[in-house]
């Protein structure tokens, strides 16, 4: 415009700047807000919906366009669209509020889903619903950390939830067969790891001289590795261990009566 209007501030609205340093130079492109993440995840396929213009800048807010020489030396091409795509893919940007929010929400729900899958109500031996877990997580003011895996956070949150509601890791149902010789000794060692022993059985095996102890029991999944190791090492491979079910939950619908 020819006439310079004396506005004291120029505000860029609806602009998200993606920056990239390459070849010692800083390049910027002007994009629409809330769109860059969609582009990166592949949901947005239309480049025009992401880029305000396919000009590459040195500074977007000042409107300084990057020089052609710099571009070709840094990117090895003069195709602006191609350069924009590169910057979009690798550049750094400030994640906008809505993008961050939706990401955290998604993680929150993911964590709740993992918790709901792993846990049961110890009274009814039935799982909690995801929405209930979500509410419980909000009640204990759990906040999602974006840089930690959801699984890890889920395991942490289970421990915290145990203080506010009745929740428990769903038990595994195991069965081991131990040779009698080591059986007694082993049993004492296993005792603290096992929640409940449902069935214990001494059995004379057909060809073998050993007396076997067959146990069906419930354990906390966290102890599985310990138990597994104990049995393998102590019995030198003669004891066997098998998982009857990974998650001991009630099945089928139940009518409340």
């Amino acid at each position, binding site marked *: 415009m020819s006439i310079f209007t004396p506005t004291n501030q120029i*505000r860029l*609205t*609806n602009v998200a700047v993606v920056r990239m340093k390459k070849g010692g130079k800083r390049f910027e492109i002007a994009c*629409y*807000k*809330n*769109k860059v*993440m*969609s582009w990166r*995840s592949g*949901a947005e*396929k*239309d480049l025009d*919906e*992401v880029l305000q213009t396919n000009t590459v800048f040195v500074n977007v807010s000042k409107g300084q366009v990057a020089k052609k020489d710099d571009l070709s030396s840094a990117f090895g091409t003069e195709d602006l669209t191609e350069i924009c795509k590169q910057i979009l893919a690798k550049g750094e940007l400030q994640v906008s509020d*809505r*993008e961050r929010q*939706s990401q955290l929400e998604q993680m*929150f*729900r*993911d964590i*709740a*889903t993992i918790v*709901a899958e792993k846990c*049961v109500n110890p*009274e009814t031996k*039935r799982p*909690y*619903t*995801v*929405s*209930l*877990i979500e*509410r419980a997580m909000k009640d204990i003011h759990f906040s999602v950390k974006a840089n930690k895996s*959801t*699984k*890890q956070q889920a*395991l942490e949150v289970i421990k915290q939830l145990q203080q*506010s509601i*009745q929740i428990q890791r769903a038990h*595994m149902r195991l069965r081991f*067969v131990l040779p009698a010789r080591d059986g007694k000794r082993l049993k004492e060692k296993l005792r603290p790891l096992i929640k409940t022993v449902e069935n214990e059985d001494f059995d004379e095996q057909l060809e073998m001289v050993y007396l076997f102890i067959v146990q069906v029991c419930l354990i906390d*999944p*966290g102890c*599985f*590795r310990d138990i*597994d190791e104990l049995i*393998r090492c102590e019995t030198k*491979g*003669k004891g066997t*261990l*098998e*998982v009857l079910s*990974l998650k001991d939950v009630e*099945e089928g*619908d*139940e*009518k*409340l*009566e």
Partner: protein
Amino acid sequence: MGHTSLEKIIALQKKTSCIRNLCILAHVDHGKTTLADSLVASNGIISSRLAGKLRYLDSREDEQIRGITMKSSAISLHYTTGGNEYLINLIDSPGHVDFSSEVSTAVRLCDGAIIVVDAVEGVCPQTQVVLRQAWLENIRPVLVINKIDRLIVELKLTSQEAFTHLQKILEQVNAVTGSLFTSKVLEERAEKDAEAQSSCTENSSADQVYDWSAGLEETDDSDLYFSPDRGNVVFASAIDGWGFRIHQFAEMYSQKMGIRSSVLLKTLWGDFYLNAKAQKIMKGAQSKGKKPLFVQLVLDNIWSMYDAVVTRRDKEKVEKMVTSLGLKVMSRDLRHSDPKVLLSAICSQWLPVSQAVLSMVCEKLPCPAEISAERVEKLMSVGARRFDSLPEKTQELKKESPAVQLPLTQEEISQRRELARQRHAERQAANQSAESPRSADAGGTSTPAGPAGSAVTGKNLTYALCAQTEALSVKAAVEEESKEHFVAFARVYSGIIRKGQKVFVLGPKYNPSLALRLPEGCSVADVLPSIPHMACCTVDRLYLLMGRELEDLDEVPSGNVLGIGGMEEFILKSATISTSPACPPFTPLSFEATPIVRVAVEPKHPSEMPKLVRGMRLLNQADPCAEVLIQETGEHVLVTAGEVHLQRCLDDLRERFAKIEISVSEPIIPFRETVIRPPKMDMVNEDLGKQQKVAVIHQVKEEQMKIPEGVQVDSTGLVTLTTSNKMATVGVRAIPLPEEVTRLLEDNVELIRTMEQFSLFAWEDKTLDINQKILENIQDFKVKLESNLQGHKWRGAVEHIWAFGPRRFGPNILLNNIEGYRRPSVWQCLEREKETERAEIRDFDNSIVSGFQLATLSGPMCEEPLMGVCFSVETWDMKISVPQAQQDSVDEDSQPSEPNNDDQSERSDMHETSSNRSRSRAEAAGGSVDCYGPFSGQLIAAMKDTCRYAFQAKPQRLMAAMYTCEIMATAEVLGRMYAVLSKREGRVLQEEMKEGTDMFIIKAVLPVAESFGFADEIRKRTSGLASPQLVFSHWEVIGSDPFWVPTTEEEYLHFGEKADSANQALKYRNAVRRRKGLYVEEKLVEHAEKQRTLSKNK
């Protein structure tokens, strides 16, 4: 009229012939409770001034707020007419469709019903329903045409018009009754025909002439209909407090005009007019343009009164009328500014509605002793079991009490009578052995004790059944110490119930033949061995139900309605109480509405879960029509009859039963994932091969799965993957199973589980004994599978089945198509005898199975279980032939179980903490002793991934759970009903007309996902004339591809570039993924330019 004393009522209760049990039934808002109010007011319980405004029987807060009745409530009234005193047990029932279960209850307890019809609205859907219910329960109805004042004040009809209007309404009501009657007759006729057909061969000549009459003419139906001259119709305006039968006017005018009242009675309603000159009553008022008698003598008077009092407010004329009628009106009322007050003051004296209704009730409705024979039979024969089948069981009992046998055999009486008598006899026997001399117990009325008495009072006994129906619904009431008390709403059919009496509580499924195996003369007092659906308890308290209050009673004789306290632990919804175990439980109530509206309920604060569960249990007990269940997903689901009912249940839960805050949501909808054969047609039904692909840069259908490196997919869908340590390679192909096979697998879950167990035992060199029957079933199952898996592709497939999944018994198959690998088949339990050479199991066999189980448990589309997919393992190469396990000097003996052991650890690894996992990796990397452990885990992961990729290499589809939906609808609403169905993706399977009625029965299927709010919508759209019933039926593949984007020119034309409207499957998939917090391919903002980005403070 003063308050009737309790003693009086107790005295009246003993006189069975003076008891009337009745309920008030009508469409919603036709004035049931208002009518009840005026009846209550006549007994002085509430002021007659308040009658019609107080709605005394609506005792709940929400009932008062909403202005509709939600719970039935009962009250006992006293009425004197012509020297006879009557006890009237009145039950006010709700009129809303959602509460028709309450109506069923009320109808069961009563002998008669008052049908109320709005004079303006006429016959409404619910009116038809209640008429049908009354008909089905065989109780006698009387009619009250209410709100006649509206004809005068609102519609401003002339008396002549009003008369025609009333006639029309009466015709409508009678038409409904008539159609009920016709359908019954036709049904009987059809039955007879069927019988005749079987016997047709013998006397075919006699049956030559076809009988066109259909039996309608032969059966007398005249006493079914309502007609004012029969005295079973009352014209009323309950709000203004007046009502009359034409009897009253007939008597009045017979004195004035000197015409015999019987003549007047006959002519007062109908096309008759008064010829003033001839002083004669003539026929044909309509054709001659004369005023019918009813208009002239009855309506005109009322009209002129309304005119004087309400419209013109003519003081003088009013006074004149009052004096001429001989009434006294308080000056306070005369001066009142609201004419309605004056009106009701006059009317309630002139033509009191309570008088008209109660006298009609006492005259026209039967007393409890006159229960119709059919009704007794219906009550006693449960469900499909024929009545005839019952007596044999009680036959033995008859012999057990020889004292009674003698008089019985002398008479030739119907089977029904006999039955009742046997009941009676049993009861006596029981009483005698318990040595409780209760003479009055024996019969309905005054029966002397002893066996001889039973013969004498045979007549009375005939209709008396030996138990009361605890017809349900625990009327929640009486709040004491913050604890809920249940009062059961019951009726004594026979005998006397006393406080402290020991009785049997028989559930609806109780079978008397079981109890009859008990030793002779076993009484209630004895401790019984547990018989299903039977409990023994003591009657704690008896109550007289007086609307909002309860009065304590000590005993209640037969024919009465009462409340029983202290039965919470024994009764669920409904039960039959008897002192004799041989009594069959009474037929369960027939509900017009079945529960269909499903919601998931959760406490606001998760720690209050136990309270919620307790509350839901109570709710389930208290409400006959609510169902409560916990689903496998852990959801607490509440099923109710409709939205209003749901609202009430939730209010009850919040305020009474659970006392916590709850939140309600749509229940989780399950899906299944499957693959199909590649489709031949595209979305616009064009052949795929011939189409020209349109190349638009960003619209080309991408290869949906982003296959990572190391996975090879060949053109036939064989996916090969190598474990991360490059030691093993698996190749898997996914094949869709034929639909029949999937169904077969679903149906035979139990068998598969048994087989699985067997092979588990075989694993450990043990044997599991399976009985011959199950073995045969398994054999059968195998044969069926084989017959369904025909064709080149499936050759030998059945023998090669490796495992089922998920959870080892699901509808997916793992096939062993590896060359040179023979493992014991899953059918080994069948060929136990043959015991061929023991097929060796490869190491890590179990890892493959575990991987398969994990893959089938959650599919790649939205982590829902798979269904109907066959994974065929085609290659399985191990770089190292023997795992390092051998190095560990493990004995050969434990070899088979060894790998099993290890891989389990890996399976658990999936669930392990990641810290644990990293540790195990470290072990593996270190190449320590245990390095084969993690390897089996890697194999599981590899297998799982391979299956998933193989699945993705095929055209994937979602499967939706489907409801079958049966809808009864009248012809006029069919169109609107179809509109609702098609809007919700429903598909009509068939429609039939029900014989003898104008009802259509439509069968349709509807996705569960679309069913939320369906019932309500369909009711709204059809104004309640169609009511659906939903039952889960099957899984169905959704036709559209969730990954579909338009690729051909036609598809573009048809769906546009985005094509987001057509894809139902995608919608479902995204909804599930969003719920689970999985990644959804979705733009945060659709249009970049159209977002609001300015922050608020600038």
